[in-house]
């Protein structure tokens, strides 16, 4: 509990009680809990309570061959699994000094941006549902399914792609795939006005979201806020542009920002990113046919693969924010230590506790969804 927000003498016990918000609650993303102390419908104190999804990924990875971890890492964040695979692979590549063929880099961008689209559609739906609007949620999930169809075609799996391996990607695009991506992108473009009408310019939603859970830029920087949540405070920082990886430096895209830093601003930034991802994907579709060559650098037999001694830190921009992977090798067949700096742990613990305190109870769920925190990634 944040001591500065709670003074017992101001709140006689008879008017206050503590409720468990989660770990099973429709207004919470995944298995995550907030212990909130409420006075009437006002939250006077809150404590984030994670750990329900702790599966010990970092420790598990130390027990597995370098190759085996590729099947494990996408599970760290279910709605946006691609960045986990890519970041892990990039870290191992950095340790091994592997040069990833250009075509593989384009395919990785393709996968990452499709994953970002899917994640954002999911989040809009969730955010809308927390304000009592369920149609956008149904739409979001249905439209995300079209992206999952593309994942199924490209990677063989709808949710957990397991598409990357250190050195590149596992399969090239199937026949006619780029046309089908274009068709889906066209469809998503045509859907945006519908979303605008139903959600983004819906007076009920705007009123609920505006001025809810505001963060200032100074607070954001102090608390380690990244990604859309940071950009919603007016700072145009995006790892894809400011520390480019893969082929992002060859792509044209804008960094959407908002100034208010509230739930509404955060949602608008994501809406803008949706458009930018579509824009990036259209460039990938155009460029990919002219980028020829292998999709994977030669790697040793995965059953007999020792990665040179060293440590690697890789950061990429996931749909939630800046995702950092720190991987240490002692020269063995398995990682010596892996640490993941997931953006959600900052957003779902200190930021969420702060924003929820003083808010009304009906906004608690909305605040959490507007931060787009991913509990499995918090817990890892």
């Amino acid at each position, binding site marked *: 509990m944040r001591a500065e927000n709670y003074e017992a003498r101001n709140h006689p016990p008879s008017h206050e009680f503590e409720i468990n918000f989660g770990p099973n609650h429709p207004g919470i993303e995944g298995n995550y809990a907030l212990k909130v102390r409420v006075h009437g419908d006002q939250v006077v104190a809150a404590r984030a309570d994670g750990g329900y999804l702790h599966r010990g990924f970092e420790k598990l990875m130390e027990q597995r061959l370098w190759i085996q971890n590729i099947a494990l890492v996408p599970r760290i964040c279910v709605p946006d699994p691609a960045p986990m695979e890519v970041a892990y692979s990039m870290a191992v590549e950095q340790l091994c000094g592997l040069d990833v063929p250009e075509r593989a880099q384009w395919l990785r961008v393709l996968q990452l941006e499709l994953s970002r689209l899917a994640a954002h559609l999911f989040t809009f739906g969730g955010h809308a549902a927390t304000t009592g609007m369920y149609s956008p949620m149904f739409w979001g999930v249905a439209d995300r399914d079209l992206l999952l169809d593309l994942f199924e075609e490209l990677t063989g799996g709808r949710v957990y792609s397991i598409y990357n391996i250190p050195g590149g990607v596992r399969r090239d695009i199937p026949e006619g795939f780029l046309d089908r991506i274009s068709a889906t992108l066209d469809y998503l473009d045509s859907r945006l006005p519908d979303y605008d009408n139903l959600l983004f*310019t819906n007076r009920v939603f705007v009123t609920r979201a505006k001025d809810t859970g505001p963060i200032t830029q100074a607070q954001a920087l102090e608390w380690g806020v990244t990604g859309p949540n940071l950009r919603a405070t007016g700072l145009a920082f995006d790892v894809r542009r400011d520390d480019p990886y893969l082929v992002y430096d060859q792509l044209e895209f804008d960094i959407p920002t908002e100034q208010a830093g509230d739930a509404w601003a955060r949602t608008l930034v994501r809406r803008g990113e949706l458009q930018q991802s579509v824009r990036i994907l259209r460039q990938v579709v155009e460029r990919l046919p002219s980028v020829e060559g292998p999709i994977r650098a030669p790697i040793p*037999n995965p059953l007999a693969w020792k990665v040179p001694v060293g440590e690697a830190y890789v950061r990429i921009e996931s749909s939630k924010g800046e995702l950092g992977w720190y991987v240490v090798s002692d020269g063995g067949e398995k990682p010596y230590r892996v640490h993941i700096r997931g953006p959600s742990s900052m957003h779902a613990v200190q930021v969420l506790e702060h924003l929820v305190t003083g808010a009304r109870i009906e906004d608690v769920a909305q605040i959490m969804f507007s931060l787009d925190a991913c509990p499995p990634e918090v817990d890892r």
Partner: protein
Amino acid sequence: MGDIEYKKAGSILNPLKSLSFFTRPAVTEPLEPRRAALRYRGFHLNDWEKCVGCSTCQKVCDNAAITMVRVPSLPEDELQGIRNLRPAIDYGRCCWCALCVDLCPTGSISLSREYVHTCTDDELSSYFVLPDPRGMHNEHFGEGWNKTPENDLIDPRRQAMGELQAEQRIDHFGEIVHGYDKQQAIIEASRCVQCGMCHEACPTHMDAPEYIRAIWQDDLEEAVRQIYNTNPFAHTCGRVCTHRCETACSIGKRGEPIAIRWLKRYAMDAFTPEQVRDIVGTPQVAPSGRRIAIVGSGPAGLTAAYDLARQGHQVTVFEGLDKPGGMPRWGIPEYRLPYERLDADIAVIEAMGVEIRCNTWIGRDISMEQLREDFDAVLLGLGLQLGRSTRIPGADHAAVHKAVEVLRWVTEGRAFKVPRTAVVIGGGNVAMDAARSLARLQRKTFGEVRVTVSALEDFDHFLADPEEVRESDEEGIVILPSRGPQECITEDGRLIGLTTLRVMSIFDDQHRFAPRYDETDRQLHEGEMIVEAIGQMTDTGLLGEELTEALEWSRGRLQVDADGRTSQPWLWAAGDMVHGPDVVHAVADGHRAARSIHRYLTSDAIQEEAS
């Protein structure tokens, strides 16, 4: 689509525009089963014809979802590297990552385009499935995720072995192959999937997966320890082994097998005999007081000597020629096996306390009866040192020789008259050895190679290793397949060549050897010397009449039991004389005989005999 401005946003009426959706079809329509994508990762399919049960899928499975299950109805063939094990999947653990597919050495596993499995009965065991080609529910939904050469995670190519080109190697007996350097060896060793097929196929069951892994770990001392678990002829086998391990290797099912023989050579070449002795250690057991005589210092005899000496017995090896080593020394040319490497193997064996007495012929210098009296047990480890004759007309001419003789002369360095032209009869590896040895001598003496090899078999059924044929060809030797020798032609008492007929068939309907020839296709091959390389046998004359009578024989071969023991309780036999020519078989035989002898010497039976 412009960005949304705060001031424009937020009409209470906007959502009403979505009412138009009442007139649109639902996104879930039409409601019909959906075909999975072409590379969907569904349930496992396994082509049982292709699968060899190597269990690589089990090793790479990151969820330990795969168990290898024995299917007794399926064939099993150690020599071909085929086990009757097949992977069974626990779908309670599988995560459908398909690494098993991408790593399968044979390419037998793929995943189906099936989305759903529900329990049709109350048993949870229906989630534990032994995949076959028909799919999970015997309904073929089609193959989904599968493997193509572009996305194979198994590297099918072996590290190329550097070797002398024909021009560089033809005028001397220096070793042809260079051997792997450290980087090549580690990369080659890293290709191994540790399936152990090699271990099972090897006659002496070498711990090949273990030493390959040790080489990969750059722990060569450990590699040598693992090699010496089963094979004290490590240098020799590292160069001239018939490498059944590589035939069985599961990587070899689609690609090139791991170069197991060259890896052994690499590990051994890193150490001197003294170092090898220190790595494997000298015997640390109390002397047993038992004495064993071994006749013949080839791989079989010396392997048994090594084992028995390490068990504390006193071993004496009798060798008729002036140097130990047996057929590897006298029958294998030095360009394949440098004799200093053979000496290195023997030095380690001698360091175990084995006494080798050269220039001691049994039957001449000492009799078998004498050995029987002086020793507690006797092991015969004789090679096939007599060549067989074709018995064609003229084969008794002084310039017609057996391949084993010629090879022995070359090893001895004996000065014999090198023929300007020579014909070798035979198509096996010994014929190639003889032909290539003569070619080198011809090149040294005359500057040109004029050797013809005449073989009964055609190239599709050739007996010699393909690389021997290729290298002979590179060295200028003419190999004539499907030629049957008819007569050694002489002119004024001087041998001038061999006539042959074209072979139409070698075996009759009952698969008996009965070659048929095309009488119209007769050729004369020039040769001042003719070398017969059509097979060898053991000189059993040294046993003496009495012992020969007492022993059991089968078609000229000494009969032994599974442990190499003859019908005489004090006498064992091992190696080529029992199992035909092969170094690694001889090593295996030596171990087997040594085990049996040790058992006998430490058993009650001999205690009673002694008392």
